[in-house]
């Protein structure tokens, strides 16, 4: 049996093959489809989750590897009341969302970035997000969203 914590809740999965990815387990077994599958090669970042507090491409994590560990998905970053958190709101305000397929992974990545660099420079932002491909926005709306979220977090300490 495979047991781990996802978004604060303990889950137990049975009969997970050794080669099944965390991405597949989250989407197909846990019903958490906010984590997206776009390449399964670790190249696009659409499947990012936080694993023990740092981002990971869930497509490249064997599901069994998270036994006893903590996973946070986009669902876990979204406030329960249907509202948006600072990063999510900044994405909307800055036009950082178009088709939205890359968005959940980017929101996860920006949380990680701001946790380690509360006031990131342009270079830090670009380096931190280089593993998240976006085909619609040209990234500039996303850069703006990072800056706006950082600013708002300073204005309203969390």
């Amino acid at each position, binding site marked *: 049996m495979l047991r781990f914590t996802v978004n604060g809740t303990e889950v137990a999965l049975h009969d997970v093959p050794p080669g099944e990815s965390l991405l597949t387990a989250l989407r197909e077994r846990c019903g958490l*489809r*906010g*984590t*997206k*599958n*776009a*390449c*399964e*090669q670790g*190249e*696009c970042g*659409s499947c990012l989750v936080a694993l023990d507090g740092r981002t990971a491409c869930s497509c490249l994590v064997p599901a069994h590897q998270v036994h006893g560990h903590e996973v946070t*998905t*986009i*669902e876990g970053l*979204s406030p329960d009341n*249907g509202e*948006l958190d600072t*990063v*999510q*709101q900044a*994405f*909307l*305000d*800055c*036009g950082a*969302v*178009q*088709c*939205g*397929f*890359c*968005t*959940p992974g980017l*929101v996860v990545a920006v949380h990680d970035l701001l946790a380690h660099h509360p006031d990131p420079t342009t270079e830090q*932002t*670009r*380096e931190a*997000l*280089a*593993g*998240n*491909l*976006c*085909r*619609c*926005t*040209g*990234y*500039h*709306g*996303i*850069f*703006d969203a990072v800056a*706006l979220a950082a600013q708002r977090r300073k204005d309203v300490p969390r």
Partner: protein
Amino acid sequence: MSIAPERPRTAADPGVGVGGAAARPDGPAKVRGEFEFSSDLHVPGMLHGATVRSPHPHARIRGIDTSRALAIRGVLTVVTADDVAGTNRFGLERRDQPVLADGLVRYVGEPVAVVAATSPATARRAAEAVVVDFEVLDAITDAETATAPGTAELHPGGNLVRHLRLRHGDPVPDDPGLVRVSGEYHVGMQDQAFLGPESCLAEPTAGGGIHLRCSTQWLHIDRDQLAAALGLPPEQLHLTLAGVGGAFGGREDLSVQAHAALLALRTGRPVAMSYPRRESFVGHVHRHPARMRYTHTATRDGRLLAVEADILLDGGAYASTSPAVVGNAGCFAAGPYAVPSVHVDARVVYTNNPPCGAMRGFGAIQVCFAYESQMDELARVLGMDPVELRLRNAVTTGSTIATGQTVDGPAPVAELLERVAARPPAPPRTDGAPTVRGVGYGLSIKNICKSAGVDDYGTARVRLFLRPDGRPAVQVQTAASEVGQGLVTVQQQIVRTELGVADVGFLPTDTTVGDAGTASASRQTWMSGGAVQQACHRVRDELLTRAATRTGHPRDDLRLQDGAVHTPTGAIPLAELIDDAVDETAVFRHRTTSPLDEEGQGDAHVAYAFAAHRVTVDVDAELGTVEVVEVACAQDVGKAINPLGVAGQMHGGIVQGLGLAIMEEIQVRDGRILNPGFTDYLIPTAADVGAHHLDILEHLRPDSPYGLTGVGEPPMLSVPAAVAAAVRRATGAAIHRVPIRPQDLTATADVPG
């Protein structure tokens, strides 16, 4: 004319109408991960489809043995061409492509059979277990020889898909006083590389039909092609748009739709299909690779006299939109310049390479790289500033383009170029990197909306009703695809502006409402936006009629404003007029166009859009790497319905152009794609895009809703040309192809090997 602010930073509050930076209605669900994309669809008991594909570029199918696949536990059916009940052909302009190969395969990856099983893994395993007996045939993989005498014909009628012959003005006689420059240019095969994979869910309906939820750019043309292939009347097919993870042209053609529908009909169960990335690379069409030979003739003071172009596009195995793509390549071969004599032969041919079709820029971007490269070369030969040469020849309103059509809308080409040229230069580097800086310019022209006599229209339904709490609200319904471009946002804004109702929602985007046409050709805000506006006008007219009846005032004395009907004796809130919902549908058409004649002349286009770029690069000539420092883009959008959305289109278009300029190319050898994945098909990352400066101009058009012009494609078009110019300027290298590869820059460098 007004100038929108450079870049709206934050979306305004909800409720904003036309011209405001409204936030996306689907945004909250998208940032929370709750938006349901087509690859997220699931229902209890659904099956999963997988595709058996040809490993050969050209082969005859001698037999298909499905017995091993069917023996696998969990496999329900395997479907081949024999099971296609209708006409086994689809295609956007010519129905030349089999839903499942019947007797012949013409490209690597062509679908031969489809399998349904209880899990995706089982379906994939079963697909691998289908044994196809192929007799391998010689493949035509070089477009240059595809139409040579004696070459096998891939389709009845031969391998020439279309030859656009364009003759405009009289040839310019040889004169030693004139300057001629010639060059040959190449553009590689680009992929749309949308992130959401091709995917859908097909469910059998009680009446023997199918309800298909899918990602597409055009529901109705999917439906019509499916009806023909499945042998069902169109009414039996209900198509609903599922969440679309980007499109860029790559979702115009059918992919999973017919296959999933076939499997669902056969099994009587819901069937989901979703391509892995590797399969996506063979699952949709690509941008046509191009070979273009040009000669420009000009006076010594830089007036263009003639442009001659010979253009060859590789259409691959099936026609898709090739005829229209080559039409654009031919019509815009001379660019946004007034040229008295234009002589173009533009051909697109069938080969056994991957099929090519629609992608943002659609034929216009290939020739833009060539004609702008020619303009730079001409400037060099003339010793003239490349900006000055362009300004001297730029079209203006009233100019005639190569098709003989007069540009009757706004054509601020010179202004756009002057604006990017007048920007302060990008700041110098401070990190001491061993690079050389270069600056290059590009201008472009592109048609907006469908061309050449197509009866193109949009349909919208607008329903004004009362919520249970008594507040008025609107539901909009169209079949127009929201692919990420923000069409739903502008539809809301239009309703708010027209009806003064802030609460605007949507009914499903599906085929129960009339055809909206395609989300391409930068046309949907114009066409479906126009239809929504007209439907709102009908709703308004009905409200005024009701108010007139109630008050006895003549209708002409009434007006709708701020959510109330104003009469000479006071305002009536909408709530009092809509105890019965007002439900109106409108069809919107743009002005008519006509086909080109045998000389390539005619008023074929609805409108033209223009953009200018200035690109600054730093080149590490020893390593052959190009760093994009800055892109300045000025674009005339007519009216920015949503400035935030316009900026998003511009940033995104610029970056796709950068990709084509320096990294994106599907490499094909012997008909096979060598790099079908994001490890080796590289698209720009956040670290590759440089700084952007946007300049959004609003020259209102007289003939479009709110004066708008389509915005999706122009910001991409002249980026590759401007990058190439900047790299030439930095290094002196001769650049005749995009993408520019590092090895193209180091091959001539003075570094011994």
